[in-house]
């Protein structure tokens, strides 16, 4: 028996700021049909277990996991929903296959953010109910305070954060699935309205709708079904203390630990030398810089400098968020990590179209669940 697990099917629907004609179920159905077709499998006959990621308050339905089997072909089959990011779901599917009990598992994540009419109310309700929520502060304050301390300690600048937005939204112009492509200057970003100073509105990803489904297979099945399997080399996840009073305001230790776990599995000791490109969380622009440092690609305080120098540009030495990231593709709520992983798979298959990178073998996807969470996940893949 072999241990390896591959992603052999991908499908997605979206991504768009609004999808008024589709229900969330139809978005999921469309993505699932594409993923099963891509993998060459019949979900009713072949897929043995299903994993979805969703958060009740994002969906506006209590016990939302009950609403996911039908549109995926999972009725009367083993399935469960995780209240976490898409990369948590992907890691779970990976583990299910590793148990040896399943050889084909599907993972789903989606966003119907346009139907969430009070998104700020949902994030506010994620604040500590007795210590923070009574103060009635918009939850973006957590991003503003983290960015301020991160810039203060690392010496990174607001201009460097703006450069991340310029890069990612420019990358999105080459991605037909990314709705927020734009040709902007650093000045355009910095002259935008403030959200939670030093964080600006234009450094914050806008929400988008869409769904992503992936099919994972054991090595034996992958070799039969796929000509372009993308192998999972390692997966890691970690949560810091939820309390805002107990966290480190300049570092994302959860991302550091998630990366360590994934690197250990993959046998990676020199991430920058081994990994060719990355997709990391940029829900807020500063988060890309902070995450690149926590993932061990650059020293603390270096990510902003190398971004200015163009190292993380699509033609640079270490391309980051070639897809456009969350800033270019949209904040997809619980599906953000799957969107990052989707780009890794497309690139490693060599099917990324006009934005295809050359000479790549190993990619890393990273995700963060957004404010006020301290939760990160990492997945490393190769072709």
């Amino acid at each position, binding site marked *: 028996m072999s241990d390896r697990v591959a992603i052999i099917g991908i499908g997605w629907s979206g991504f768009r700021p609004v999808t008024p004609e589709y229900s969330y179920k139809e978005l999921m159905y469309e993505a699932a049909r594409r993923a099963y077709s891509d993998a060459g499998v019949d979900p009713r006959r072949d897929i043995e277990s299903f994993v979805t990621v969703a958060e009740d308050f994002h969906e506006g339905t209590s016990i939302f996991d009950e609403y996911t089997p039908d549109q995926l072909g999972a009725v009367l089959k083993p399935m469960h929903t995780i209240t976490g990011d898409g990369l948590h779901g992907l890691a779970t599917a990976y583990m299910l296959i590793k148990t040896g009990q399943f050889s084909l598992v599907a993972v789903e994540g989606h966003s119907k953010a*346009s139907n969430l009419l009070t998104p700020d109310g949902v994030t506010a*309700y994620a604040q500590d109910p007795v210590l923070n929520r009574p103060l009635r502060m918009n939850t973006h304050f957590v991003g503003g305070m983290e960015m301020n301390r991160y810039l203060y300690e690392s010496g990174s600048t607001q201009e460097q954060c703006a450069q991340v937005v310029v890069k990612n939204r420019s990358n999105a112009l080459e991605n037909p699935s990314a709705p927020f492509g734009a040709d902007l200057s650093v000045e355009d970003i910095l002259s935008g309205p403030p959200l939670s100073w030093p964080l600006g509105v234009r450094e914050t990803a806008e929400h988008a709708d869409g769904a992503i489904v992936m099919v994972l297979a054991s090595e034996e099945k992958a070799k039969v079904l796929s000509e372009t399997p993308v192998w999972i080399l390692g997966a890691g996840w970690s949560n810091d203390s939820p309390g805002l009073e107990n966290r480190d305001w300049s570092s994302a230790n959860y991302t550091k630990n998630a990366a360590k776990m994934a690197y250990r599995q993959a046998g990676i000791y020199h991430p920058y030398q081994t990994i060719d490109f990355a997709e990391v969380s940029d829900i807020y622009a500063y988060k890309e810089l902070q995450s690149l440092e926590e993932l061990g690609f650059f020293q603390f305080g270096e990510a902003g400098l190398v971004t200015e120098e163009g190292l993380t540009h699509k033609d640079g030495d270490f391309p980051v968020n070639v897809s456009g990231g969350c800033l270019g593709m949209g904040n997809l709520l619980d599906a953000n990590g799957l969107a990052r992983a989707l780009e890794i798979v497309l690139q490693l298959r060599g099917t990324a179209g006009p934005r295809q990178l050359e000479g790549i073998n190993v990619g890393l996807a990273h995700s963060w669940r957004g404010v006020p969470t301290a939760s990160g996940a990492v997945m490393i893949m190769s072709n």
Partner: protein
Amino acid sequence: MTYLEREPAAPKAWQDEMQVTNRYTYGVAGERFFRAIKDESKILGTRCNNCEHTYVPASLFCERCLDHLDEWIDVGTTGEIVTFTHLYVDYDGSPLLEPETIAFIKFGDGGIIHRIESNESQQIEIGMSARAVFKSKTERAGSILDILHFELMTS
């Protein structure tokens, strides 16, 4: 504005809202922490001597070693500003006409998140000291709102 609101002939949707009302028990440590604010104008922490870590707000347990904590410490009412932000959106996402300044003020190895007195907020810098300003005793109810705001110690 959503597409549905712009286009009357667009496909239909149903609108609804969740009724969610909760009670949040302070717990053993939380009750003592908020009673000290209400009755004594004090901010209390609990100390873990294994980890040499003082939790503020006070906690019943140490998240590092999971020991039960029973050493209570008065950490004073003046702390250092670790970070701050000028927030331009209200709780519900609507714009604020005047931004409000929020800070994390360090006490022990933790701290308190609160507002900074608005007249002073433009002078704020990381590393400054700030002092808790309490409501008058008769107005206190035993919550984080018994602290009105923090004021900067500019001298």
